[in-house]
């Protein structure tokens, strides 16, 4: 029989960090020590003897399955944690998207099978033995590699987020805040550990001309998706990734090889890459003209808005849950920046009137999801929860109002404003514009 611990939390006025119940980020640390120190006494009365296993569950009493060749989810998790794959509303489109269930996950690494994807021409079933990537154009010698040849190079392994610049597009113009849990507002960002060959290694071998300014990447999907990558990026930190989270890429992530441009909008990280053309001008492909350009209020559009902004969102609590009782909760979420490291995350429980600094879980990595946490005392009073990230370059996540004032409502891409969850007196949570 388990002993019940009686936890009492003593909230001291000095523990308050900001308005409406936000506590000092070290509060849980202190109170954990206090409850841990309390020794709970107990006594067991001897009764009539039975087998000692009485009352145990079957899985404790019978040996389980053998080791599987490939581990699977618990049967109780199948169907619970999954991507949101419904097509976007409003007209037919054959591009399909799978959105990461951020509100159900923890940590900063997204399981490979839950990594978001957007494909404009479906997921191809590429045979790695028939797939090769050529580097050509303004180079000394055109070269080609298959995945087995790439395997021989020294690799780099780095953790990076990838985000579709259409993440949160519904927040620009949609008059009513979207309530599809977090899928439609934030589900197009994920974090992974990527392993591959630095693109500069391969470009160096081909011998890039000093007049080169762009690399045009083309994929082997049925639309041969293509994007222009600035040469400074390609020579700096881009890689040809072959592994994700320790195993070969999933088909939806570009198997057997993809470009990974850390911090750039996801569409530039061309999957199933098979041609890299080195040149002095961008190709002006459909995906850098018709799509992935940001329409402004003055009739102009931003083009090559490649770098992702500084952004954050509270993943718990969110509109996928209701707060059933008053008490102490942990507010936690993710922050990221396409430029570098997250320097600070602040949280507000009063719609941005007062802010408290959240604890940021290290090691904080450049261009990677960073988890933050802060304790919050919910006393049954209405609240508006928000998070605001700042990166190491001093870029601060804007309010929705400020973002719309700068760009208008039709931009569609690169939405990165502060996200607001309203909590009412009954603990019900909704996405609101605040």
């Amino acid at each position: 029989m388990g002993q019940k611990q009686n936890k009492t939390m003593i909230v001291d006025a000095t523990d308050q960090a900001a308005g409406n119940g936000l506590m000092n980020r070290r509060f849980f640390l202190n109170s954990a020590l206090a409850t841990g120190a309390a020794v709970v006494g107990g006594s067991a009365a001897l009764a009539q003897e039975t087998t000692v296993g009485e009352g145990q569950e079957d899985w404790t009493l019978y040996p389980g399955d053998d080791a599987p060749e490939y581990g699977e989810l618990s049967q109780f998790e199948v169907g619970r944690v999954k991507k949101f794959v419904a097509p976007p509303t409003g007209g037919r489109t054959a591009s399909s998207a799978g959105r990461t269930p951020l509100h159900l996950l923890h940590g900063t690494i997204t399981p490979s099978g839950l990594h978001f994807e957007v494909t404009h021409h479906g997921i191809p079933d590429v045979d790695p033995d028939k797939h090769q990537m050529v580097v050509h154009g303004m180079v000394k010698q055109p070269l080609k590699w298959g995945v087995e040849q790439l395997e021989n190079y020294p690799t780099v392994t780095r953790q990076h987020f990838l985000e579709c610049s259409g993440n949160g597009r519904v927040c620009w113009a949609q008059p009513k805040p979207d309530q599809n849990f977090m899928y439609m507002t934030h589900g197009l960002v994920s974090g992974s550990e990527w392993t591959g060959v630095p693109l500069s290694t391969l470009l160096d071998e081909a011998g890039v001309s000093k007049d080169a300014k762009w690399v045009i990447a083309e994929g082997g999907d049925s639309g041969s998706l293509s994007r222009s990558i600035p040469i400074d990026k390609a020579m700096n930190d881009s890689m040809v990734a072959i592994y994700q989270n320790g195993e070969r890429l999933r088909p939806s992530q570009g198997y057997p090889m993809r470009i990974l441009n850390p911090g750039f909008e996801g569409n530039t990280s061309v999957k199933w890459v098979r041609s890299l053309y080195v040149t002095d001008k961008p190709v002006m492909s459909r995906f850098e003209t018709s799509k992935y350009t940001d329409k402004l209020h003055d009739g102009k559009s931003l083009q090559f808005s490649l770098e992702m902004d500084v952004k954050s969102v509270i993943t718990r609590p969110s509109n996928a849950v209701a707060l059933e009782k008053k008490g102490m909760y942990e507010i936690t979420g993710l922050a990221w920046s396409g430029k570098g490291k997250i320097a600070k995350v602040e949280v507000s429980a009063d719609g941005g009137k007062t802010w408290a600094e959240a604890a940021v879980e290290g090691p904080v990595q450049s261009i990677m999801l960073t988890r933050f946490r802060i304790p919050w005392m919910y006393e049954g009073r209405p609240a508006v929860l928000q998070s605001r990230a700042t990166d190491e370059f001093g870029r601060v996540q804007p309010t929705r109002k400020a973002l719309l004032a700068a760009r208008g409502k039709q931009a569609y891409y690169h939405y990165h404003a502060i996200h607001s969850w309203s909590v009412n007196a009954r603990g019900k949570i909704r996405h609101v514009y605040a």
Partner: protein
Amino acid sequence: MRGGKSDMYMRKTLIAALLLAGSAVAMAQESRFGEPATQADIDKRFWSVFPDGTNLPDGQGTAVAGAEIFELQCHACHKNPPDEASEFEPEDPADVLFGGHGTIGTDGALATVGSYWPYSTTVFNYVRRAMPYTSPMSLTNSEYYSITAYLLYKNDIIEEDTVLNKETLPGIKMPNSDGFINAYPEVPEKYRTK
């Protein structure tokens, strides 16, 4: 010791050695694990055509031939131009390809080939590699020039009999060619939040 005489000497010989080696192997430097790519390897994988006409293929077409191709190959998924009555229109159409002129910058922005696309070559570039959606690359280069001509003609950009080929296509100016602002490496100040 920094900048000493022997240091200087070392550096000079090193540079000389590098120069020698450089000129000797400049062309012969080998890739560690890559293989030389042949023109056939490249042609199979390289579909990009550029605004200045780079890599446009031979062949040619006009909107007259394009109209027929549109009806057969595209209309199942894309709506007809507004001026063409037809018994059939797709119920659940893919991207609108015609019209929307003057709507960019308004709340009812309709971005189409005519109202939004800044380069004529992008139309050929994308349609050839990706359309018809379920059978991309299934037409000839001349047919792709023809369907490009039809899309431009029905967006009031060229005449019905304008011949498109690798010489003429790059010269066609699109209505929204001045509509884009470069945001790399930074979004211009004006559109940044304070």
